């Protein structure tokens, strides 16, 4: 009898091309997703070495970081460097013959939303992208790593990645989430508990009743932020929820191949008694709607709490918190619900999917955003946008006073014109609250889509449960 294996062990073993005595392994890559920011130097490297893309049929590219999200997008990209970067992707995709969704394709969007939407991401696969939020695809029970540009070039040339196996970490969320509490609150609460380095060197498997109860959209939100907890990847074992989401997608298997795939996918779970190097357990019932108050995703508190003081922390974190409070313009002891925001950003690979938009619509239906508030909703893909329009969500957003944008990464990292000005304060559904992340001097509070919607209505960080 073989030793019990974790889900990570099983996917790893199924993709192992070779392994040296010291544990350095070559892992086969099933899907390589590419965007315009981290790929130009990799394609240039191939060109200079006279190399080809080894598996263009497994390589999918889409521009997302630099693209304008305003409705006049067809006018082109004003910023010259941004335009050159997108044009470089156009050219590289054509020259190397890889799958491509250009800016004007309705299927264009954030790479981590497009992959699952088109059925490129399937259970049990290895997926890489030159982007840390590749972790998103782990929601399907796919081993998904963010990689650097040198590794992008390596995968383009060899369809493999040099890896050492990570350790196994289990994050179990027992019980159920309370009303008003979402996958975003869950994943932020985990980072609050483990810290941003809590997962370093590990692949996290999320499990437990609260995880099982999440939709695929919610699971993607959870895995998306595994990287914010420092993990190499996040995983959720596939189940009927997964299979139903995948079935019928453009690049999902069909007919006999579907049946064969399904049979294998159903073996993708952690065996009873498998070893985890680290285990973290949270009770679903204990998780409240949360916000971040600082400049690290680990700076998380329930919305009912107050801004902490540097002295509440230890070691190097004391100075970091002092710096963060200064940057964020906050005083210890002030209630989080007293923090006024002037901007609301709803979107990103963390929360730019249809379910997120439906949740926002539930909160803002028939209501108006606070006067003077800049509030934008940026769907994760052109198809999410189309669906939101079909379901009448877009009309609700516009009625409430939101800007309804085209798909892209937008203000999550502000490489396109969607940025915060110095001192502006934003409730954002994105994934990073780092200094300058949404624009130099901009202040970011990470929240769920529901909480962002609530903040847009009241003009301050707000407990969404008061509006339900």
């Amino acid at each position, binding site marked *: 009898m073989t030793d019990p294996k974790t889900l990570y062990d099983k996917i790893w073993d*199924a*993709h192992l*091309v*070779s392994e*040296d005595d*010291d544990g*350095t392994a*070559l892992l*086969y890559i*099933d899907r390589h997703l590419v965007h315009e*920011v*981290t790929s*130009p*130097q990799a394609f240039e490297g191939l060109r200079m070495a006279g190399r080809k893309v*080894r598996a263009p049929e497994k390589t999918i590219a889409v521009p997302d*970081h*630099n693209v304008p999200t305003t409705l006049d997008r067809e006018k082109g990209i004003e910023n010259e*460097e*941004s335009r050159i*970067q997108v044009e470089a992707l156009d050219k590289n995709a054509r020259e190397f013959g890889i799958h491509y969704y250009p800016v004007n394709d309705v299927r264009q969007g954030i790479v981590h939303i497009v992959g699952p939407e088109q059925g490129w991401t*399937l259970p049990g*696969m290895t997926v890489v992208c*030159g982007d*840390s939020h590749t972790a998103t695809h782990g929601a399907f029970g796919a081993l998904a790593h*963010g*990689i*650097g*540009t*040198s*590794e992008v070039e*390596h995968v383009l*040339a*060899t*369809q493999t990645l040099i890896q*050492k196996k990570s350790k196994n970490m289990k994050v179990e969320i027992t019980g159920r989430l309370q009303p008003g509490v979402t996958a975003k609150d869950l994943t932020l609460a985990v980072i609050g508990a483990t810290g*941003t*380095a809590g997962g*370093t060197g590990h692949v996290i498997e999320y499990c437990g009743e609260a995880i099982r109860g999440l939709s695929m959209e919610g699971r993607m939100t959870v895995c998306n932020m595994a*990287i914010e907890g*420092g993990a*190499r990847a996040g995983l959720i074992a596939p189940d009927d929820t997964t299979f139903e989401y995948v079935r019928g997608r453009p690049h999902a298997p069909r007919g006999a191949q*579907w049946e*064969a*795939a399904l049979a*294998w996918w159903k073996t993708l779970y952690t065996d009873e008694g498998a070893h985890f190097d680290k285990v973290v357990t949270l009770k679903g019932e204990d998780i409240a709607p949360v916000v971040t108050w600082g400049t*690290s995703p680990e700076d998380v508190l329930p919305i009912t709490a107050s801004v902490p003081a540097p002295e509440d922390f230890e*070691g*190097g*974190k004391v*100075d*970091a918190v002092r710096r963060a409070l200064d940057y964020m313009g906050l005083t210890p002891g002030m209630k989080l619900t007293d923090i006024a925001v002037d901007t609301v950003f709803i979107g990103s690979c963390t929360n730019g999917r249809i379910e997120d938009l439906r949740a926002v619509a539930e909160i803002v239906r028939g209501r108006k955003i606070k006067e003077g508030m800049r509030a934008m909703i940026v769907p994760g893909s052109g198809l999410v946008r189309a669906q939101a329009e079909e379901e009448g969500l877009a009309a609700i957003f516009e009625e409430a006073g939101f800007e309804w944008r085209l798909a892209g990464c937008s203000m999550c*990292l*502000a*490489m396109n014109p969607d940025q915060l000005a*110095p001192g502006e304060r934003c409730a954002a559904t994105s994934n*990073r609250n*780092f*200094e*300058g*992340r949404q624009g130099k001097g901009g202040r970011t509070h990470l929240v769920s889509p529901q909480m962002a919607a609530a903040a847009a209505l009241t003009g301050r960080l707000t407990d969404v449960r008061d509006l339900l």
Partner: protein
Amino acid sequence: MEKFDKLTGVAAPMPLVNIDTDMIIPKQFLKTIKRSGLGVHLFDEMRYLDDGSPNPDFVLNKPAYRDARILVAGDNFGCGSSREHAPWALLDFGIRCVISTSFADIFYNNCFKNGILPIVLPREDVDKLMDDARRGANAVITVDLERQEIHGPDGGTLHFDLDPFKKHCLLNGLDDISLTLEKAKAIDDFEQKATRARPWV
């Protein structure tokens, strides 16, 4: 990739924890399609004042550290995005070694692809080197990769651990792709086998 064997230079102290990749190289500089020229933008938002002039309080702007070759940094250095622009910017500035108690995984890997040596040490050793680094130009440190040793300004020696394969590649300036292509047969064999087992992929 430039080989790394022995490095002697001034070490700059950056004790802040969780220095993220947005701090190392903000996103407005990711629009380049080249690898070079990013050194001037390294730590941009901390390094320059709003009018674009150098911030005199920032460590790398102080005369003693302008030619620093080594960083001694707080916990979890390089957390955040996968941008290889972070090590490109460090390298272009002249930093070839970063020492901390811990690094984010992707940043750590990216360093080795660019001839930069990230060294993980226990907290007491990092604290000691941080104190040395605070002494500026008087505190030259030597990093000996072959022997896996750091020689401090006062004659002390610290040992560090490192993955043997990563060490080998760094010492010899080896390109990963060439090494992997030597295993082309194994990749072909795997691909055939995997296509039979999982034809839907």
